């Protein structure tokens, strides 16, 4: 017999942050956030909602209402696989996938994501790989991700790696850009400066 646990569920307004919704609405794709009628089409069309602790619809509602901490702590935003099903099905044309991106960015910015969750790491790995070579090498990246999050996995997937190698679908040598690499770096740096110059949203 597990003993009865109780948690305080009530939310006091001071625990919420109404500006959170406004920020999200101000990011590209977030413009229609407040038009949501909570019909749940997103949740039911979402192929991964089965594993989400909050359905996408709830994420929208909570975002609007300022449940910042709960939203950023939720696994939902990380489970979103960017299949855009919700976005095209939404009767009020909310771009839910883009909103999920916005939330991921916020979570990473505020460093509030589950440590063992590989996705943010993947994103970062990806970023650095691209910075280095201008291209990504899935094999490598995935390996590094697992290395950081769950090293055992590497072993469990060694077989697959070999199969890929044998069929020439994974190479030891890194794919590199054929030139223009500096230009790409310059571009990315310039984005920084240009963005800094701009009045922040």
């Amino acid at each position, binding site marked *: 017999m597990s003993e009865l646990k109780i948690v305080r569920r009530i939310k006091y307004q001071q625990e919420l942050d109404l500006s959170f919704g406004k920020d999200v609405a101000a990011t590209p794709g977030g413009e229609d956030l407040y038009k949501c*009628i*909570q*019909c*749940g*089409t*997103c*949740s*039911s*069309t*979402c192929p991964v*909602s*089965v594993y989400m602790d*909050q*359905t996408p*619809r*709830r994420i929208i509602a909570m975002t609007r209402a300022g449940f910042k901490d709960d939203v950023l702590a939720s696994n939902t935003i990380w489970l979103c696989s960017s299949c855009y099903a919700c976005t095209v*099905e939404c*009767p*009020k*044309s909310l771009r839910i996938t883009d909103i999920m991106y916005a939330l991921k960015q916020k979570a990473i910015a505020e460093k509030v994501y589950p440590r063992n969750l590989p996705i943010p790491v993947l994103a970062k790995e990806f970023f650095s790989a691209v910075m280095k070579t201008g291209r990504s090498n899935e094999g490598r990246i995935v390996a590094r991700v697992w290395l950081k999050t769950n090293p055992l996995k590497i072993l469990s997937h060694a077989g697959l790696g070999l199969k890929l190698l044998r069929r020439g679908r994974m190479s030891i040598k890194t794919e590199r850009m054929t030139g223009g690499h500096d230009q790409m770096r310059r571009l990315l740096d310039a984005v920084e400066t240009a963005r800094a110059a701009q009045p922040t949203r």
Partner: protein
Amino acid sequence: MIMEKKSPQEELRIGVYVCHCGANIASKVDVESTRDFAAKLPHVTVARDYKFACSDPGQELIQKDIKELGLNRVVVASCSPQLHEKTFRNACADVGLSPFYVQMANIREHVSWVTEDPELATRKAKSLVAAAVRRLAFAAPLETKRVPVHPDVLIVGGGIAGIHASLILANAGRKVFLVEREPTIGGHMAQFDKTFPTMDCAACILTPKMSDVKNHPNIMMWTYSEVEEVAGFTGNFKVTVRRKARYIKEELCVGCNDCVEACVLKKDRVQVPDEFNVGLSRRKAVYMPFPQSTPACVVIDPEQCLQLMKGKCAQTCVEACERAAIDFDQSDEIVEIDVGAIIIATGYKPFEARRIAEYGYGKFANVYTTLEIERLVNASGPTGGELRLRDGTTPKVAGVIHCVGSRDRRYNPYCSNVCCMGALKMAHLIKERTGAEVFNFYVDMRTAFKGYEEFYDQILSEGVQFVRGRVAEVTDWAMTDEEKGKLVIRVEDTLVGVARRIPVDMVVLAIGLEPQADAGEIQRKFNISCSNEGFFLERHPKLGPVSTFTDGIFLAGACQGPKDIPETVAQAGAAAAEALCLVDKGFVEIEPNTAWIDEEVCSGCKTCIPLCPFKAISRDEEKRIAVINEALCKGCGTCVAACPSGAAQQNLFTDEQIYEEIEGVLSYA
């Protein structure tokens, strides 16, 4: 120079009245400073601000000033002239000032309601007032013309709206032309089985009214007919109607259906879906739309009849008809009628469910629309009232999906108003006829009128399962064995907060209401406006719900927006009353904004003649100049803008008045 030439002899004494409209104007526009600004303008004798200029005390204030201060011009800075110009004109006329010495400045719709910054709003208001004051200098004391009104009324559309309006007018002793494009009147209501919330049978309450229409001495019921052209103006419309060939002598046919029996086309071989049963059954080339069709008269479909298509057929129908009512030589007939008022009651078009691929209508056999179910449960329907799936089995589980094609930016952004109640009715009927488990999937439940919430209560207590959530998909791939061979409804149960998959045998789509496919054409024919979604636009959402921007043309029923039967009937009554008060008044007053030619100046260059769409301009061969027939002129001013001599002028909109307005607004922009 023009100014010296035309400026008025009498000394101008202008009164300016700045309305607060409660807080509507005053909250944005600084009415006091606008008043003071006006007071300093040339020729302004008095300037006042007032809480509600349109109120009786407000009007009395103006009248008092006219009498005591001898005002001879009045500017009212308030709302749109579309709203209150008449009010203030009448107020002035009552104390003997020409109504056309009144000028309005629209500082509400065009200023306070659309401007954020109070300072800029005030500035804008001032410039509009300045313009109005200057414009008045060139106002003329015009005469409004009275034109007699033709007493008859045309009603377009023979659905419940048209039927109800016709009867009211006919009972009031008016002659009514009821034009319906289908072979019978009755419209969508005739297709329904039951009507919410009372669940009385549609036919039982509709068909008596239909035969009243048929038998009423004052009603010309023209079915299978369409309006071709509309000319003229309020009180005096000239309407051309095409009476399509029915190939049946209407006066002879008694609707015995012998010819239908006789028709050589084998029912199953005929490829025409029966319109009345929305394609759930098939009909022959000669057919009676439905048993209580009014008129009780068959019609021959020229697209199907061998005789009419190929010119050769045994003509078994002709033999079968004892009254020799069949006439293959009939041809369309064009009739012209004169009417004083027109009521448009052209109804709606059901949403085309195929457009939402996710719901699988047309792909999965057992996905139906509400309209199809109405027919299936109807005793005179294709299954004689048996609610069966296409394979003949009875559904054990059914899902009714609300908001199909409504409240959705991709299809129709608006709420179709009737679907919630319709869907509840469906749930009830399905349960009643099959005892099936019924799920209703709704986004928001809208049961807002008399007796509706009670109906919802009843359906709830009948044990219908309500899931709050918009269905994402009706699909046929199974996750569990239970789902195999069923239709699976994917939805989030938003009240629980989890996604669900619900297998059902039958899906019913509560389709929304759309404007008729040819609404745009009708709109042009009758010269009225459409709102964004394509329904006809009422003159004012609150104060002119059945009027249009074209005087003498009124709206009834779903052609103006989604409506259920009670609302439609109520509106039909209102439209009938409006039409009645127009034709009973016997005359209309025409805004004297007609154009005229200054003989001194016209060189007879003929430029204006072809520009008039109403053929009001002709050449006076005596004087060798153009002349405008005031009776025909509608006052658009196109000829005026084109006259290269400035000889053509338009009352209420002379060149001087407009130049003054230009300078006026700019003098304080």
